[in-house]
């Protein structure tokens, strides 16, 4: 217990003194996570709409498949992206390996199933009678879609928050395709992994608490936006 308390005090101290290295690492975690969730949302929310509003063969199977990938291990995504982005891999020419962009690519892949699946569920939960009413009053397909997104916004926001949480908390992708390079791709989770392996448990705990603090702030902001 003493160790946990020391970690907590250390976290407060690091935040209070604006420790430059820690702030930089925290900022990097935040901006990589946010970039991933923004890109992921821009791709997945419309795509989920396309899947939801269209009837096609194999739709059920597709949704099951998407849900299966909720539990894909981050190291598997990391390995896949590593093989793709490695110099000899198919996308090696981009020179993205060991860069923040590589982590974003991995995180977007990681959260895509969650975003798609949860947004589809949110769309499904919209009361059908509202849509029927809108149609009977002459709403176009586009207007109905906007109505669905509006009605489903709590569910959509929950999906986005969930996706952000998975992105900022993952360590496997950041470690494998980011390389945990100090000043470039070292994020909170990889720093925790390094510091605890170096035996600096206190600093590792402090970083963990800072990560939770960041998530808290982001969630408060997102909830604010949603409730307005």
């Amino acid at each position, binding site marked *: 217990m003493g160790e946990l308390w020391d970690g907590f005090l250390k976290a407060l101290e690091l935040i209070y003194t604006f420790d430059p290295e820690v702030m*930089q690492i925290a900022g990097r975690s935040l*901006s990589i996570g946010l970039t991933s969730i923004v890109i992921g949302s821009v791709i997945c929310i419309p795509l989920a709409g396309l899947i939801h509003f269209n009837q096609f063969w194999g739709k059920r199977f597709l949704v099951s498949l998407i849900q299966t990938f909720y539990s894909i291990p981050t190291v598997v995504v990391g390995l896949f992206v590593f093989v793709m982005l490695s110099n000899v891999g198919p996308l090696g020419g981009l020179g993205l390996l060991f860069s923040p962009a590589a982590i974003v690519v991995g995180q977007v892949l990681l959260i895509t199933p969650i975003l798609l699946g949860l947004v589809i569920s949110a769309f499904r939960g919209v009361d059908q009678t509202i849509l029927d009413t809108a149609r009977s009053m002459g709403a176009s397909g586009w207007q109905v879609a906007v109505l669905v997104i509006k009605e489903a916004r709590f569910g959509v926001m929950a999906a986005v928050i969930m996706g952000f949480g998975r992105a900022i908390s993952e360590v496997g992708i950041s470690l494998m395709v980011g390389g*945990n*390079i100090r*000043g*470039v791709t070292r994020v909170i989770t990889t720093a925790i992994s*390094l510091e605890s392996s170096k035996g*600096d448990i206190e600093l590792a705990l402090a970083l963990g608490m800072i990560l939770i603090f960041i998530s808290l702030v982001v969630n408060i902001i997102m909830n604010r*936006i949603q409730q307005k």
Partner: protein
Amino acid sequence: MSFKWMNRKNVLFALLIGILLASMFLPSVGCGEKETTTSPAGDGTDFPLHDPMVRFKIATTTSLYDTGLWYHLEPIFEELANVEMDIVYAGTGIALEYGRRGDVDAIIVHDKAREDVFLADGYGINRRNFAYNFFLIAGPENDPAGITGLSAADSFKKLYEEGMKGNVKFVSRGDESGTHAKEKLIWGEAGYDYEEIRNSGDWYVEAGKGMGPTLLMANEMGAYVLADISTFLAYNLKSGLDIVSLVEKDPIFLNVYAAIAINPEMHSGAKIDIANQFINWLISDEVQEIIEAYGKAEYGRSLFFPIAGCDIPGCPPVEAYTEPVPDYKP
């Protein structure tokens, strides 16, 4: 209602775009901050802004990282060569793999046998040895296996016998690192087949981690472990290890570090000129003196030795460190 919603959506959208734009500055922000932070060497100087940004990537063996030597050397070379150095923490096995794939520009490793294969296959050129130290076997202070004073091979025999009786445990890196390769070599020297050893029972624990974490694991378990002396000293000072060094001073414990440039004929993107400059810098008097002095104040002794002092059997020939690598001509 619908109008109000659209408004809110616009606000949300604008916010997201703002975040996206902000994060596009991410790489430049990251580097900018890095350059203005105080040098870890502790000399209090700020790094100048490097422009244009050239990234030089190396993969380094874990012991040189865990002991903090790279923290010390990185800013000096960055300033000298006007590059941004990206250091990836990797055991010898994965460092060689990164090299084979051309994912880095140079590698720092310590396993002569696999280095030779790497060079023979044409993936690497211009190997130079630049530092050495020794391995040791650490274990519980009361030494239940009774290996104190034995040779490396005899110690391993004892550990196997006592391990099979359930009296002691041994923690192996188990990660194809240079240290792991050395461990296999010692098992061979002791007359065992390594595959048999690793499958012989619960006493043999494969950590699958870097040197530092493996030491901490052995410490927690009260087990025996093969470690390089530098990481052992660094962790002993930092974490107060309960395990102590029991067996040292066997010629087989010699541990020689090498820098190898990635062959640009295999991977055209490899930055051979910087890699050559880097390797020549490592064997320069300036860095050799830094290596000699590194850690002396804290540990009372050097963690790594300048390669020129290596004069026991198994040390590299003199030209492996005195001869600067030539400029690359395609």
